[in-house]
């Protein structure tokens, strides 16, 4: 079940929410939480019921490991065993085929392993529980309730694609009975509608164009224009897709009176790659920092070692996104970006190089361009397509403009033609409408306040602190309980219900991880 499936929007959500709210008011707390857990299992099993057993088995085993680690004297060995068991499960389902592929190319013999269907959300619920085990080892798990642990892992708004919640963020909330129901419902539903809009309108349109550009690039030599347009379309598609999912998860959870951590905070406004990773998939960055980078030594063992650690973490982050070299390449590119960013930051922190610092708008533009380039291998179907697109973006495949532009541009067109610009077919190009969309989305991601900022007075997500940026915009657009605003949001929701019924906007990109 996807958050924008008709069955979810028109049946699952109203029924499960209604039941939960009713039980919260009229029954013991455990009954409401049990209803929520059952609803979460139905949500998970809707796609592939047999993986319910994997999910439940993983929860039971990890809970028992957690209890044993807390109690046992030789806990490190137990922790190693528990983490290894989790990674083994992840490896079998997600990486076995990839490892066989590597083994085949190394040994030269054909090793084939039947790739099982990837259980939905396995990367997320595995990481969630590894963090729990490590914290149990550190003596930081105090709540021993199995029921709350079960719900912490299965709680459906975050189960499939994050945020990667920390047990200390969620489990205490399950001890509280929901209050201020109307505020939760209104704030949650507004956030959900914003997410739905991003997914069904913005990401869907960008997805159509991305498919056209990347589809045309397969086996071809895409020119400068179509390569950049394709990469830009995907940069916006994944931005709005993931932003949409994060909003919907936070909004849905809030309707149930549960706060999730902020996971997405206008990453394209970042003035550097270091900052980008503090804004993009925030909870994954947090996990990698706390449970991988720090245990590797972080920056405590000298500069060189910290740079090695960064590369290791980013390569593994890439691999976490998928069992393919293209994701490793994407992680590697970001690792190199981070090293450059750290080096640059260190250089410009010296007094005599301080004047080299970019003004903020330039830094944002450079960071954005670097991110767009890095998205190419992430989206491309294989390494060859990535290289073709990247060559195109460097201008190595020439520059082609649509044939009819020669006449439209008049003398300028002739000058361009004389300078070597070719006028012909630009596969995927969608004309002025496409350019207007891209410009509008650039304004959206750079200038407008994000969902958390719009709802800042109502504490939309855990760990979000509104910055002073976008002050004026925020004053105009900020959400407040107001009948006119409610009517406007109602209209948008009604329109989106048409889109929901229309169906087939595609699953979330992050669902495949």
């Amino acid at each position, binding site marked *: 079940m996807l958050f924008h499936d008709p069955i979810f929007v028109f049946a699952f959500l109203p029924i499960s929410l209604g039941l939960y709210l009713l039980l919260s008011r009229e029954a013991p707390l455990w009954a409401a939480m049990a209803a929520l857990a059952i609803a979460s299992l139905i949500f998970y099993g809707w796609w592939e019921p047999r993986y319910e057993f994997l999910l439940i088995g993983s929860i039971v085993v990890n809970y028992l490991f957690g209890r044993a680690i807390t109690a046992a004297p030789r806990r490190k060995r137990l922790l190693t065993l528990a983490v290894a068991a989790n990674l083994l499960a992840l490896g079998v389902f997600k990486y076995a085929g990839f490892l066989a592929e590597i083994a085949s190319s190394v040994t030269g013999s054909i090793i084939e392993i039947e790739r099982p269907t990837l259980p939905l959300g396995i990367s997320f619920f595995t990481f969630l529980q590894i963090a729990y085990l490590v914290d149990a080892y550190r003596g930081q798990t105090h709540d021993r309730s199995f029921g709350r642990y079960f719900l912490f892992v299965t709680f459906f708004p975050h189960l499939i694609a994050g945020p990667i919640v920390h047990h200390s963020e969620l489990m205490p909330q399950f001890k509280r009975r929901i209050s201020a129901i109307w505020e939760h419902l209104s704030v949650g539903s507004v956030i959900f509608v914003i997410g739905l809009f991003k997914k069904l309108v913005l990401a869907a349109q960008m997805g159509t164009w991305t*498919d*056209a550009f990347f589809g*045309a690039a397969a086996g071809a030599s895409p020119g400068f224009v179509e390569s950049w347009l394709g990469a830009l379309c995907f940069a916006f598609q994944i931005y709005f897709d993931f932003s949409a999912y994060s909003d919907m998860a936070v909004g849905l959870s809030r309707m149930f009176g549960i706060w999730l951590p902020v996971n997405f905070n206008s990453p394209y406004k970042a003035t550097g790659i270091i900052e980008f990773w503090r804004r993009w998939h925030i909870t994954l960055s947090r996990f990698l920092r706390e449970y991988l980078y720090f245990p590797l030594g972080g920056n405590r063992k000298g500069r060189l070692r910290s740079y090695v650690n960064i590369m290791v973490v980013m390569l593994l982050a890439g691999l976490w996104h998928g069992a393919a070299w293209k994701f490793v390449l994407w992680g590697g590119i970001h690792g190199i970006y981070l090293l450059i960013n750290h080096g640059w930051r260190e250089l410009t922190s010296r007094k005599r190089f301080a004047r080299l610092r970019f003004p903020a708008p330039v830094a944002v533009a450079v960071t954005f361009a670097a991110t767009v380039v890095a998205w190419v291998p992430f989206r491309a179907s294989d390494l060859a397509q990535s290289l073709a697109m990247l060559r195109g973006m460097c201008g190595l495949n020439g520059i082609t403009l*649509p044939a*009819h532009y020669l006449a439209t541009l008049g003398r300028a067109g002739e000058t361009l033609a004389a300078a070597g610009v070719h006028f012909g077919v630009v596969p995927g190009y969608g004309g002025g409408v496409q350019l207007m969309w891209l410009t509008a989305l650039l304004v959206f991601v750079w200038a407008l306040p994000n969902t958390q900022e719009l709802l800042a007075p109502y504490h939309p997500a855990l760990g979000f602190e509104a910055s002073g940026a976008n002050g004026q915009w925020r004053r105009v657009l900020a959400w407040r309980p107001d009948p006119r605003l409610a009517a406007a949001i109602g209209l948008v929701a009604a*329109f989106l219900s*048409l889109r929901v019924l*229309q*169906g087939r906007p595609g699953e979330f990109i992050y669902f495949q991880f």
Partner: protein
Amino acid sequence: MVGMTEVMIRTTLLPTDHSQEMIERLHTSTVPYAAFGDSHVESAIAARQDLDNFGVASDNFDTVAARIHVRLSGQPLKGVILQADPELFSVYRTTADQSLRVEELQRRGRPPLLAIMRPAYRPYIVRYFWAMLRTPSLLFGRRAEAPPKESTSVSVSERDAQIRAQLQVPSAQFQDGATSREYSRLVSRLTAAGVAVCMVSFPLSGPYRRATADLPPFAAAYDWFAGEARRLGVRYLDLRALYADSLFHDPDHLAHDLAVPFTATVMKECFAR
């Protein structure tokens, strides 16, 4: 909004919708010849006593193939006119998800209670809604005043032709793609079933032919169709330059009033009928 769109579909579209009839005909027709393809076929072929026209605008090849399979599973067929135009290999067609259309073809029987949930309408709900906002009279079953354009020929501009060609350009290495493989497989299957296949490249306006003349993927596609027809031993008609420019409705669609004479030409050349 959902309710208004439902009403609009029921009052404006359903009364003139023949898609259910077409599906029924696909399953039950005894007419010996049939034409399949996209809007080129839909607008240029006129159904006759001995010929069904199963062409539907914007069908991609998956859907065309599904229609043929459904028809083939029914009463015997003598001959098939199969579109052989490069846009079948264009990215916008090959990446289009038409599974709802295919699902509807295979699921015979009562359509869903709500008209907006019918596969033929469901992918376009939002477009219908905008159309209704622009022309509120649609809610009461009135179409916009514009006459049916397809019956009139217009002067086709070079610019429009270039824009259309830009959209319809076949993807690079389409020869190795799933669509071309499926095309060849389908022709083989038809001939193996004793059905005479006639592959037809449909007429194009001069501006469109000029716009595509310098584009290698178009030439490669026509060469591929001709080569496959030779290899598979079926007839291939290249009718791109059959008509003067003044007889086109748009860059690549013949004016509708030419459908009858054009169909006669095709049936004669293909099947000597």
